[in-house]
């Protein structure tokens, strides 16, 4: 699929995904099954390759988060003006404004775009295909706790869930809670623990 398309074609992608049984998909499924059966590939290798294709920039997001965890003054700047704080790291931001929302012990944030596929692409690259699926776009606002549970995140009722619909000009990043013992970790260790899913908010514990 070419990437010089407008919004209309994103809609088409989402619709095809939902239809599911397009010809190319059948061929890919068949090939994968044969290659796995012959021991040439594992399902995990395929998933890892997909993640790499979909999120070429997740390491940039990880750099931002690790710095925020280890430098309180940077965390404050990131929360008050996300775009400027990201640009401090020489990451070129093309979005008008980056809003960083912070997870705390009592608050959990989830990012979605119900209208299409708005996403902080200049930082994270392309969104994952599930993010632009009609199912995620509709259910992330209508029944977000159930969606999170399907991602393996069972949020207690006592935790406040805030869903952010990036329907217009803002783009969002979640600042996850730092792991225990953050002070004993190296920056590299911290960055390696941060996934794309943490930055969208479908994963919580780092």
């Amino acid at each position, binding site marked *: 699929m070419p990437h010089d398309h407008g919004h209309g074609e994103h809609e088409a992608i989402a619709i095809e995904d939902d239809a599911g049984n397009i010809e190319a998909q059948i061929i890919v499924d068949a090939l994968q099954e044969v290659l796995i059966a012959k021991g040439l590939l594992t399902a995990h290798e395929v998933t890892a390759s997909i993640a790499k294709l979909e999120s070429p920039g997740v390491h940039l997001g990880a750099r931002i988060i690790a710095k925020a965890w280890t430098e309180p003054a940077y965390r404050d700047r990131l929360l008050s003006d996300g775009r400027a704080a990201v640009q401090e790291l020489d990451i070129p931001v093309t979005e008008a404004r980056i809003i960083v929302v912070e997870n705390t012990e009592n608050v959990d944030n989830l990012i979605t775009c119900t209208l299409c596929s708005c996403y902080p692409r200049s930082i994270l690259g392309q969104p994952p295909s599930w993010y632009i699926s009609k199912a995620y776009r509709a259910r992330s*606002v209508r029944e977000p706790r159930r969606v999170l549970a399907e991602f393996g995140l069972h949020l207690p009722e006592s935790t406040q869930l805030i*869903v952010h619909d990036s329907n*217009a000009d803002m783009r969002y990043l979640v600042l996850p809670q730092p792991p225990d013992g953050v002070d004993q970790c190296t920056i590299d260790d911290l960055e390696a623990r941060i996934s794309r899913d943490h930055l969208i908010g479908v994963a919580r514990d780092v």
Partner: protein
Amino acid sequence: MTRFSPGDRVRVLALGKAGHVRIPHYIRQQIGHIVQYCGTYLNSEDLAIGITSRRAVDLYRVSFSQARLWRDADIPEHDTLVIEIYDHWLTSVEETTHAP
């Protein structure tokens, strides 16, 4: 000077505009409160049809109670949804409290 400030109660209008609009149906007619003023942006309804010469419009982040939005008994009271709404889609709730 902006029309609304953080904390103000607002209702999202149902303008019934045709074409490219970025205010989804699920949030129209709903009452929430202003969280943040985001600045001014060219109106996406104009940009979609190639008009770039009009005045930029104010944009706000507005918060809504999920339990009131969907009227489900099992949604925790403190869960919220925050969405961006352009100024011309908002009205002060005081103006509309008499509506049924």
